């Protein structure tokens, strides 16, 4: 799954730690999601979308299989 988290975070000038604190997860989790090594759970995906004020589909896309 692909995502735009790094780009959205950069637009808001947030560090990975800032985002991690807003999401109540570790920085390692933010890093793993940004690098697309880990797909977040649905609750976390909703939380990410809410934090950025966007819909899930605006942030995540299926990507190439």
């Amino acid at each position, binding site marked *: 799954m692909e995502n735009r988290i790094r780009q959205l975070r950069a637009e808001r000038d947030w560090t990975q730690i800032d985002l*991690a*604190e807003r999401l*109540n*997860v*570790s920085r*390692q*989790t933010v*890093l793993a999601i940004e690098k697309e*090594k*880990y797909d977040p759970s649905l609750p976390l995906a909703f939380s990410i979308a809410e934090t950025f004020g966007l819909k899930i589909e605006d942030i995540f896309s299926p990507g190439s299989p």
Partner: protein
Amino acid sequence: MTSTLYTNMREGYVHMHTRGETASVKQSMRRYYWAFTPAIVLYTIGTMLLFVSEGRSWGIQLAMAAVPIVGVVWVAVALYGLYRRSDELVRWQMVKGAASGFLVGMPALAISGLIFSFLDEPPGRPTLLAVWIPFLIAAMGWSIGWARAQKTGA
């Protein structure tokens, strides 16, 4: 006792990757090792005591058996504490690590147990080596699985 162990670990040892935790990976690993070192020491001492106490009364043997059991309980409590205080990525890494370790460790346990059962003298009586080598192989398997799972967020 379990409650005390859990409290100690919560406070001092196994709160890696919790919210607000800015400890380096090195510090996190140090906590991880501190959580498991006492368990390994207890298991080692307890296993030796168990073998030394062979032939003695049931009461003494049961008392000796309690030492490695405390070691096993320590590991279980440490893992539970770590799991509870972790976020979803670390939980997933733990499950993945445990699964990898299980896949490597269990066949190793079975094969080495079978080999050592042929070496036993008299037959059917496990030696200290027969207890320890499968245990070490299983522990190595789990460690490899854990280390591989940790790479996810590297």
